[in-house]
């Protein structure tokens, strides 16, 4: 055998152009440190409520170890149908319009792949969750970010949106409350966006994973507006609402033809979501309402605390109306977000994610997760205050 010839580059070019996640970069740095306080974690600090874990253990005890129907357990879909109706006012048929997925992550991938043809433009608002642009690129679509601004509390306004709509636009991805900004839309915004979506014959994929963590104002899903159910894929999951990130379970609701298309991909690549996680999800929907109320009230206090602390120390921060992130502006100190967060880590052992991990428009911001123990948050705020005071002296 002649072994000297080096192999050609096997990696697909459209994949090579996707940059490594900024979160991953930062993780590699942070994991080498000891004794840090991390406000960089995008998942609840609560463990999954015991009754939910116990339901999964009970199911395992009773031999629930097999595949389920591709769409997910019917009992779970029936409960989801009731839940979405009660909490969001949208009716979905459990047999033809609901698909249980491996997290919202999978559901987002399915939704994008089901609708995207090469060259289709998919609009999303930025700063945003890390996976939207890559998932669109993997599907050979063109990601089109709309930059939202601090002055408007990172809301997506119809005006901003309309400027980015072209003849190639296929769909719009919404995520309110937003990771990382905590932004929430008001009814006016949502109605204006819905009008544009209908006018330009677009589809909306709405990632509502944080919607149960809305602290102020009305909670309205765009899918609930007249004429919108037909053009909406509604995604939600259990990761944030019930602190179930490790269970990997989420769901999608959409009209039958869209659900069918997503299901086609899901059945070949995933078969079904893990049965034990589906069993846990059933328990969460049946008996987990009070868990949500408790967590929400706890997060709200932390939010108030962290925002007023940040503002007092001189890092201007809007009060996010949802999710569990504060997004202070740190651009007044002559450093990039990355430099700022690395120095904060070096000098005070506090880890916050630089805003640029959520798109270039996150420059000048820091994401501080308050899904952390209250004592840790207090200590982190003391340390950050010390850090900022030193910067201000110079």
């Amino acid at each position, binding site marked *: 055998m002649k072994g000297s010839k080096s192999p050609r580059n096997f990696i697909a070019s459209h994949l090579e152009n996707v940059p490594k996640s900024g*979160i991953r970069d*930062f993780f590699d740095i*942070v994991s080498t440190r000891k004794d*840090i306080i991390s406000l960089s974690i995008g998942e609840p600090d609560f463990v999954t409520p015991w009754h939910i874990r116990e339901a999964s253990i009970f199911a395992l005890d009773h031999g629930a170890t097999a595949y389920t129907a591709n769409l997910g357990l019917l009992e779970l879909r029936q409960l989801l149908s009731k839940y979405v109706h009660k909490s969001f006012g949208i009716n979905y048929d459990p047999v033809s319009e609901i698909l249980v997925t491996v997290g919202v992550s999978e559901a987002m991938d399915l939704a994008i792949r089901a609708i995207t043809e090469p060259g289709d433009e998919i609009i999303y608002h930025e700063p945003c969750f890390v996976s939207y642009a890559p998932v669109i690129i993997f599907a050979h679509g063109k990601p089109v970010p709309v930059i939202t601004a601090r002055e408007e509390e990172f809301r997506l306004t119809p005006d901003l949106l309309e400027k980015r709509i072209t003849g190639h636009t296929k769909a719009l991805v919404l995520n309110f409350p937003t990771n990382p900004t905590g932004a929430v839309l008001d009814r006016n915004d949502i109605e204006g966006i819905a009008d544009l979506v209908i006018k330009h014959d677009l589809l909306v994929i709405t990632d509502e994973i944080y919607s149960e963590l809305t602290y102020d104002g009305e909670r309205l899903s765009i899918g609930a507006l007249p004429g919108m159910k037909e053009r909406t894929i509604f995604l939600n999951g259990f990761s944030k609402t019930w602190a179930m990130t490790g269970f990997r379970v989420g769901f999608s609701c959409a009209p039958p033809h869209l659900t069918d298309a997503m299901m086609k991909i899901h059945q070949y690549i995933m078969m079904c979501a893990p049965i034990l996680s589906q069993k846990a999800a059933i328990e969460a929907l049946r008996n987990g309402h009070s868990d949500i109320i408790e967590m929400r009230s706890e997060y709200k*206090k*932390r939010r108030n605390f962290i925002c007023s602390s940040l503002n007092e120390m001189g890092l201007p921060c809007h009060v996010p109306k949802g999710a569990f992130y504060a997004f202070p502006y740190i651009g007044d100190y002559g450093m990039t977000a990355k430099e700022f967060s690395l120095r904060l880590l070096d000098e005070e052992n506090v880890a916050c994610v630089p805003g640029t991990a959520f798109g270039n428009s996150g420059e000048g911001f820091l994401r501080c997760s308050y899904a952390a123990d209250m004592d840790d948050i207090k200590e982190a705020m003391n340390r950050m205050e010390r850090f900022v005071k030193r910067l201000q002296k110079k």
Partner: protein
Amino acid sequence: MDELLKLLRKNALESPANMAKMLKLPEKEIKAKILAYEKKGIIRGYQAIVNEDQLDLNRVRAVIEVKITPEREGGFNRIAARLSKFREVESLFLMSGGYDLLVFINGVNLKEVASFVSEKLATVNGVVSTSTHFMLKTYKDQGVLMEMEKEDERLKVSP
């Protein structure tokens, strides 16, 4: 329940300044509300939750189910009030079901508890019968797990 009370029940040492931030209220108002709760007797005191098992005190804790005869005027109250006054009695509840009062006792040793039951409790007029159970180990007390929680197992950074 008032959010302020919830915070205090979780951590009575929380500073008024911090609670003011969390509840978006002026610090002065927090202090005034706490004072009012204390005055009204809604807040009855502040104590540390101690895991006595770790202290090797060799103290004995027991729960006693007590059946009593209700009285024509006052029902169970007179006897309950009387039992509450004993230093050994930590907590006392009126119960539905097979017995009437549930009494939590903290004693120096087994003998002390035994003599409390036989000499003081059982002899109270109206007490019909008692049934004593000794506590062996505390797993959770007042909502607090006695075993220290494991470290945060989440990744240090995640999206």
